[in-house]
């Protein structure tokens, strides 16, 4: 198993009730695999899954990127600052 940190903001933070969560995943899990997993368990997340961007260690990555032990994974919904 690998352990990764998930970071949620704004609507997703409220959907999961937490901003930072550590989870165990099967080795070889990809970004899109993780998104499917979360969408299956949270319908607010599911509603946004098509627009979520994934960042690992503060850099956006393709969704088919395999995750590694220790990754810091941020789920970025369309921004609304300013």
């Amino acid at each position, binding site marked *: 198993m690998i352990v990764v940190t998930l970071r949620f*903001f*704004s*609507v997703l933070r409220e959907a999961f009730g937490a901003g930072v969560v550590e989870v165990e995943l099967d080795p070889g899990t990809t970004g899109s695999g993780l998104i499917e997993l979360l969408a299956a368990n949270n319908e607010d997340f599911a509603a946004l899954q098509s627009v979520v961007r994934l960042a690992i260690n*503060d850099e956006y990555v393709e969704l088919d990127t395999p995750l590694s032990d220790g990754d810091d994974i*941020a789920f970025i919904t369309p921004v*609304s600052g*300013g």
Partner: protein
Amino acid sequence: MEHIWINISEELPSISDVHSFLYASQGGGVCVFSGITRLQTNGRVTEKLSYESHKTMALKEMRRLADVATERWPVLRIAMLHRTGTVQVGEPSVLIGVATAHRGPAFEATQFLIDELKKSVQIWKKESFLNGEEEWVSTIWQDTD
């Protein structure tokens, strides 16, 4: 001194500190944009806004935008400052300032930076209305420039 001043925090620097920083470039034109919590949006009365950021990513993205502006216009100094937390009506959430030798590029670069900040910087805004309703402002990803 570094020509770019980027900051995200619970309080904005004072507007006079922002101007002092930009004036010290000794350029001829300084444009400062303030984004303010507006009283009314689509007929609803706003009570306050609340901002949240992915701070490390947002700071990097603001820096990237300032670097793009620096390549595109002859800017002398840039300030990009954003608050997080609660921002009451009539208070600023964001300050964007640019100093240039001549005024045209100061306007253009300032407008570019606020336009792009709204498209790509990892900050989110929740709107609280006077009638008690609250909602995260819903947007779509826009092409960045």
